[in-house]
């Protein structure tokens, strides 16, 4: 069992910090405080935090904030960032309008 799966581990109380208002996920405007708080509410994986707060689910798909979120969560959990599994990679890798995503081409020949 690694430090992450040991859920009986006490990570302490959520203590507000002066920079909690700082935006971390630029697209969905998720703050550092929201992410830190979520960890103390029991969300210990990037996937959970992402689903709950939407950080990394905006237009850029976490391109800018993924590493930052990981760092914040790891610090809160007092573990190495390398222990945290990154979010699942899904298609589409870039924002695609639904009408385009649904439109299969008939003639592909390049």
């Amino acid at each position, binding site marked *: 069992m690694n430090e992450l799966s040991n859920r009986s581990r006490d990570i302490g109380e959520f203590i507000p910090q002066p920079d909690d208002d700082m*935006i971390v996920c*630029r*697209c969905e*405007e998720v703050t550092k405080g929201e992410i830190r708080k979520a960890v103390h509410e029991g969300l210990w994986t990037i996937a959970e935090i992402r689903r709950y707060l939407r950080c990394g689910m*905006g*237009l*850029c798909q976490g*391109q*800018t904030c993924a590493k930052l979120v990981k760092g914040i969560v790891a610090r809160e959990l007092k573990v190495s960032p390398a222990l945290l599994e990154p979010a699942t990679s899904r298609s589409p890798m*870039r*924002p695609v309008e639904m009408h385009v995503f649904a439109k299969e081409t008939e003639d592909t020949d390049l």
Partner: protein
Amino acid sequence: MAGRIAQHPILGCQNENKKIVTFHYDGKEMKGFEGEPIAAALKANGVMVHRYTLKQHKPRGIFCAIGRCTDCVMVVDGEPNVRTCMTPLAEGMDVRTQYGVSDKPFDQQ
């Protein structure tokens, strides 16, 4: 045009022989080079703010300039969320500041 590098020590005159086009930024007439990213033309015209965010109404501008961060999106020809750093400028384009996902300021939405 202000903001342009007239002559570069290594690259020379970078925009030589490019066609000048007219476009509109929030109703104001501006000039830029055909085919350059909208964001480059706006920067050369001194525009810093591309949009105001949905939740906190905070200003955003060019951040990555290569289509990854999506911070520079604006309403272009009526379509919101257009990445201005990736979209080539064309004659007569209508480029507007994006408020949330609209081109109307928040108090008019």
